[in-house]
């Protein structure tokens, strides 16, 4: 058993790393085409992402919302659903967070912040749960409906934020009323990274704990693995699936709430920058394993941080990092097919016949 787990773990890291190296090599070709030095680009990618304290903070900060939006994909995926509407849940979450003070004055301090984030979580949860419910009760494909819900969320968001709920003082940048100073989410200690990172890491860890160690999480995985079996053993598939969607949606909702409370201070159109879509790729690369989302999101954030550096130092177009990410994701996702084919470990796959191989890993 350990041997299998070990092989699994090695493969889970080896293939993505190999893919990443391949992607970097290809990216070097692109850079060379542009007339810049690939070696310098590689160096700057590293420096910009993880080269010094600032870079680390930069990467971690960018990773924080991605961890949460990736959970929006990962958790429903474990229940067998592919949800791509995280962007919508993030947007309604941000909206709910900014909308709370319109209804009542939340207590100042962390209680108030918690209320804001709860509102965001509930909004996001409802948003994705709708897609789950439509799938379970009406047979509507959740991938499509969550995508459509995303467009609707964005339209409603802009309509309210730039219309009825617009702060008259937000003159040239239409926004809701800014959150009170005491409700905002600050930085972690002396670091230039806000507490959203802690939320992201904590929820990813909780996600894996829930899936691995609770019976509810186990039941969810059974439903996701084989709905028919689940029915046979009498699991309440509908409830489990919709709950998984709600949990996923809550994560993106919190991401939106944090973006508002830690970065923008009010809800406005700047919230909509594709964090939800990026989360989809992060989750797939992490194979929908919540804890694996953490390093993948940090890597993704690191690319973003490095992109800024490539522009400033090499004058490469801003899109170069998008090219790199595109190449990397295509290769990483395609490398999924190689799973179970790690050459040096092939022997250990048949330990019963060839006990000799047990020395291999």
């Amino acid at each position, binding site marked *: 058993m350990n041997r299998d787990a070990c092989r699994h773990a090695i493969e889970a890291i080896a293939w993505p790393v190999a893919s990443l190296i391949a992607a970097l090599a290809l990216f070097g070709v692109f850079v060379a085409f542009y007339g810049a030095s690939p070696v310098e680009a590689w160096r700057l990618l590293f420096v*910009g992402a993880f080269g010094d304290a600032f870079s680390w903070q930069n990467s971690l900060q960018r990773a924080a919302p991605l961890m949460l939006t990736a959970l929006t994909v990962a958790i429903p995926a474990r229940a067998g659903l592919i949800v791509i509407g995280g962007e919508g849940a993030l947007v309604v979450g941000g909206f709910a967070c900014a909308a709370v003070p319109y209804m009542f004055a939340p207590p100042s301090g962390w209680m108030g912040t918690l209320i804001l984030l709860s509102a965001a979580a509930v909004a996001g949860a409802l948003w994705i749960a709708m897609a789950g419910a439509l799938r379970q009760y009406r047979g509507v494909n959740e991938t499509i409906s969550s995508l459509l819900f995303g467009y609707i969320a964005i339209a409603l968001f802009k309509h309210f934020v730039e219309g009825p709920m617009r702060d008259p003082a937000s003159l040239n940048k239409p926004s809701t009323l800014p959150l009170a100073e005491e409700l905002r989410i600050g930085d972690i200690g002396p670091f230039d990274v806000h507490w959203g990172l802690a939320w992201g890491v904590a929820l990813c860890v909780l996600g894996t704990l829930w899936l691995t160690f609770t019976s509810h999480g186990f039941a969810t995985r059974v439903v996701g693995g084989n709905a028919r079996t689940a029915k046979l053993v009498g699991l309440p598939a509908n409830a489990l699936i919709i709950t998984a969607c709600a949990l996923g949606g809550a994560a993106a909702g919190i991401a939106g709430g944090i973006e508002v409370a830690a970065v923008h201070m009010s809800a406005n159109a700047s919230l909509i920058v594709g964090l939800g879509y990026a989360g989809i790729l992060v989750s797939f690369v992490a194979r929908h394993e919540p804890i694996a989302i953490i390093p993948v999101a940090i890597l993704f954030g690191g690319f973003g941080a490095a992109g800024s550096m490539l522009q400033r130092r090499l004058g490469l177009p801003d899109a170069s990092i998008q090219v790199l990410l595109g190449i990397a994701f295509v290769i990483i996702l395609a490398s999924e097919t190689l799973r179970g084919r790690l050459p040096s470990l092939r022997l250990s796959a048949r330990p019963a016949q060839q006990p000799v191989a047990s020395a291999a890993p």
Partner: protein
Amino acid sequence: MYMWNRRDWLRATGALGAGALALPWSRLALGQAPITIGFIYVGPRDDFGYNQAHAEAVAEIKKLPGIKAVEEENVPETQSVQKSMQGMISQDGATLLFPTSFGYFDPHMLAVAAKNSNVRFAHCGGMWTEGKHPKNTGSFFGYIDEGQYLNGVVAGHMSKSKKIGFVAAKPIPQVLRNINAFTMGARSVDPKITTSVVFTGEWSMPVKEAEATNSLADQGVDVFTMHVDGPKVVVETAAKRNAMVCGYHASQAKLAPKAYLTGAEWNWSSAYRAIIDAARTGKPHPNFVRGGLKEGFIKTSAYGPSVSEAARKNADAIKARMMSGKFDIFAGEIKDNTGKVVIAKGAVQKQTDLELEKMGYLVEGVIGKV
């Protein structure tokens, strides 16, 4: 103090040491010392519009000796821009930053400025308020409504249908001020003229902009202008509909040489220079920088070949009065398009009047709703 701790920590943990090289006193001692300046754009640098207007000025600034410019484009108004600014400071040693998009100011630029009190921030877009915002930040902006007024004057002469059109992004004060100036310019020529407005809701969405232009042309509009980030699509679509067009942000003349009448262009290099010189000589940071035609912050495109003699004469005359400071666009009585008096008879709101920066109405003659 908390702020100090953070900065010390950043340096101590080896932010490449670059940030530490550019301490304020070393700059003071050297006078015209070399300086690294960061420029951040919200869109592509060559969009024939807002970002290009900045990039053109940056290209000029770069030619000056002792200036190293670092640039980033397509930076969204999120924590990305905060990190880009901090990166320019910590990694490139920039001591002066120009975050050029309106949305960068609050909260992003303010957040970074609070952590870097030795770095100067010059934001484009008129947000800085005495007493409210720190001294190391500031904003500069131009009274481009003067250019839009002149656009309107030319449009008023050239329009045959007496219907002129405005493709706008969002109903915000800056945009409304331009729509109103354009309309009043045209109506100063012929009070029968009306301006139809279409808001696209986005700063850059080409298909919507094209569709807005077409819809307006369908309603008989024959002269267009716009306030979106990249006017290229509106200019080209208007030309395809055999309509005339007045440009905005930068010159779009070469996109439609026949249809292009004139345009309201930014001319940022004078504002840039003033701010950069202050930084290099150690003078206080100019926090509140504004100017119009007179100060050279904006300019007008050369008239297109189809602009009539009468239009040129009239527009030139008004331009001359603007240059001498004797012309006020927002002089009462001005009614909005619901009939309410917004500026009383005899009252004048000078360009510097902050009331104008809160504009929330469309003047008489504009067809559209805020």
